[in-house]
């Protein structure tokens, strides 16, 4: 699954993906590391939407994860009640792991923006290269 974000900015998508990964690997531990993002970020060719994905599976939540930094980033897209629910969920998962997709599905303001690759393909997110024949060499 992929998540279409509220703000059509690739920098915003990268920031959300980064903060998702920081839940597992807070910056005080990961500042020097190659891995900085949970998943990929991509833009619709028409420039009107951005998404992150894939967001399947679970990821570790560090005992020192900064959940407030993450929820502040998505605050404009969720209600106050949803915000608290996400904070509570992340806090409960510290030291263990969390299912990111389930967390989004449990947040009504975000759940409707979850889309499959097939849906995105239908909606024109992916340029499907034209296949042409070549002559034998």
């Amino acid at each position, binding site marked *: 699954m992929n998540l279409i974000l509220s703000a059509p900015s690739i920098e915003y998508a990268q920031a959300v*993906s980064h903060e998702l*990964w920081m839940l*597992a*690997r807070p910056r005080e*531990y*990961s500042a*020097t*590391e*190659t*891995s*900085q*993002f*949970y*998943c*990929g970020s*991509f*833009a619709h060719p028409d420039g009107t939407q951005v998404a992150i994905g*894939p*967001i*399947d*599976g679970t*990821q*570790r939540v560090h005992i020192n994860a900064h959940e407030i930094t993450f929820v502040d980033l998505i605050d404009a897209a969720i209600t106050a009640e949803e915000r608290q629910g996400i904070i509570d969920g992340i806090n409960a998962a510290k030291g263990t792991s969390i299912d990111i997709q389930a967390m989004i599905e449990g947040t009504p303001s975000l759940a409707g923006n979850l889309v499959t*690759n097939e849906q*995105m*393909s239908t909606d024109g*997110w*992916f*340029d*499907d*290269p*034209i*296949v*042409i*024949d*070549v*002559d*034998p*060499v």
Partner: protein
Amino acid sequence: MPTSKSSKFCLGSIEVSKIYYGINEIYTSAVDGILDLFTDPYVAYSCRDLGKARSAFTSIGDTGSQSSDTWVAQIRRSSDDDQKSFTAAQMAGGAMETWVGANDGFITRWYDQSSNANHLVQSAVLSQPKIVTNGVRNADGLFFDGADSFMDLTSDLPFSDGTMHVVSKLDPTSQRQTVFGGAGNVYIPVGQGGATRSGAYLKSSVLTHHLNGQSYTILDTRGGSFDAWTSTSEQLLTLTGVASDYPVQEIGRGAGQTSSWDTNGFIQEVIFYSDDQSANRVGIETNINDHYSIF
């Protein structure tokens, strides 16, 4: 313990180019690598040493402090997400598997062994190709899952008459794969086997193909299979006259920033020259085959 195989040291079937006792290098292979025998490639990726005289350099992106050695790859282990760079000798000698433990290991950085430091990088954890599965190193190299895994070049590959050598084992039942992609629908496809698609190099072209040292003519008939790139066994594909309208930016995924044309299978080694290496083709292929025993 390493075992002698003629003039080589081997761990199992894997030739070791260097052996360390603690931090001291006590053995260096007498076997010349591609970097020793031929001109410096534009990029060169492998988990073996491609040259016995490579210079040490500082790791990039390891957890904690960085250190200097002739690194070939950086791994993220799934147990705690720590990241660490390894030399070819460490990978062949089992140090990487020991460090990963009974879990999975993913490639975060595939160091360029050419002098250009054009490393392949994947900073998104869910897109990193796998190198260790349940504590065991993939014998066929980096595994690209056909869905999400790919790596970005640090710098684009602009080429007009390039030469490419790829050791791979890519799933022939998976349709519409690409190995090299970039902006502007640049892609060098693996080949779209199956009933509905035929293959092509769109906005890119290739002059000649050699498969396992033999000339390979593309029989590209619609409804047929363009399967020079895919095989149930490891193979070496050499392309000459490689040209593209746009720079190549990625390995393991097709055109643009999103695509369903993903590589599905293993990539062991990629060596790319920005010029025509037809005169050295046989020598390069022989060197590669001496290591992998493909044909």
